[in-house]
C-alpha cells in the first residue's frame, strides 16, 4: 500500500507541476505539513469512475483562487467573480486528468467527472475510499491543497 501511495504522490506532484508550468507559466512546489485553515475555502471536486474509483479535491482560499484565475486568464479578477470558482474547477480538472493519464493501463481506463465547486470548505469531509492522502502546494507564496482518494 505504501508503494501505491508513494507512486500516487509522485504522479500528483508531476501533474501539478505540469499544469502550472504549461498553463500558468509558473513553478509550483509541494509543501510539507498542513495548510492553515482558511475561512470560506473554495473546494473543487472531480470523481473517477471505472477501472479506478475515487476522487480528487482541490481546496484554496479566496486569495489563492483569485491569483490562480488571474494567472490563467492573464487579466485581473473582480471580487465575487464567478470566473474564480470556474478557474479552481478547471485547475482541479487538469490536475485530476493529468494524474489519471499517468496511471498505467488498465487503471487509466477510467472516466473523470466534470468539476463541482463549493465554498463549504473541507470540514467534515471523509473519503469513502481505501487510500487517501493530502498534499499541499505553493506557487509564488500562494498555497493550496489537494486530496486524492481512491
Amino acid at each position, binding site marked *: 500500500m505504501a508503494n501505491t501511495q508513494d507512486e500516487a504522490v509522485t504522479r500528483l506532484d508531476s501533474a501539478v507541476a505540469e499544469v502550472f508550468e504549461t498553463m500558468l507559466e509558473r513553478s509550483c512546489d509541494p509543501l510539507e505539513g498542513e495548510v492553515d485553515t482558511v475561512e470560506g475555502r473554495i473546494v473543487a471536486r472531480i470523481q473517477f469512475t471505472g477501472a479506478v474509483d475515487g476522487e480528487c479535491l482541490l481546496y484554496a482560499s479566496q486569495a489563492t483562487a483569485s491569483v490562480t484565475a488571474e494567472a490563467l486568464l492573464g487579466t485581473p479578477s473582480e471580487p465575487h467573480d464567478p470566473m474564480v470558482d470556474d478557474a479552481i474547477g*478547471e485547475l482541479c480538472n487538469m490536475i*485530476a*486528468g493529468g494524474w489519471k493519464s499517468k496511471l498505467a493501463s488498465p487503471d487509466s481506463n477510467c472516466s473523470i467527472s466534470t468539476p463541482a465547486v463549493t465554498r463549504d470548505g473541507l470540514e467534515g469531509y471523509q473519503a469513502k475510499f481505501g487510500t487517501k492522502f493530502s498534499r499541499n502546494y505553493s506557487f509564488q507564496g500562494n498555497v493550496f491543497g489537494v486530496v486524492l482518494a481512491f
Partner: protein
Amino acid sequence: MRALIIDDSAVMRKVIERALRQAGLELSEVLQASNGEEALQTLRDNQGSAALALILSDINMPVMDGLQFLEARKQENLAQGVPVVMITTEGNESFVLRAIAAGAQGYICKPFTAEQVKARVLPLLRAA
C-alpha cells in the same frame, strides 16, 4: 475567420481563444457554447451566416459531451466541412480513437501551450 469554442468552463474558453490569437489566427468572431447541445443550436442558428473555419471542443461536459456532439453534428449534417479539434483532459487512447471515428480531425490534451494549439490547428486550416 470565425471559430466556435465549446467548453463548460468559461475560463477555458477564454484561454483557448487567447491561444488561437497567439497562434496568429485573425478571428473576426468567436462563438461560444458551454456544452454540445448549445453548440448544435449555435450551428443551426448560424447556417446562413459566414462559414465557420474551425470548431474546438472539450469532451467532458454536462448535458451533452463532446463525443455526443460529434455524432449529433454528423446526423444533422451541420458544418460538415469544418475541422474539429478536441481539447480535453481525456488523453486516453480510447477517447482519441472514438473522437476521430466520430469526425474529429485533431486532438489536444490539457494542459496545453499556445504552440501546441498552433501546431495542431494551422495545418487543418491550410488543408480546409
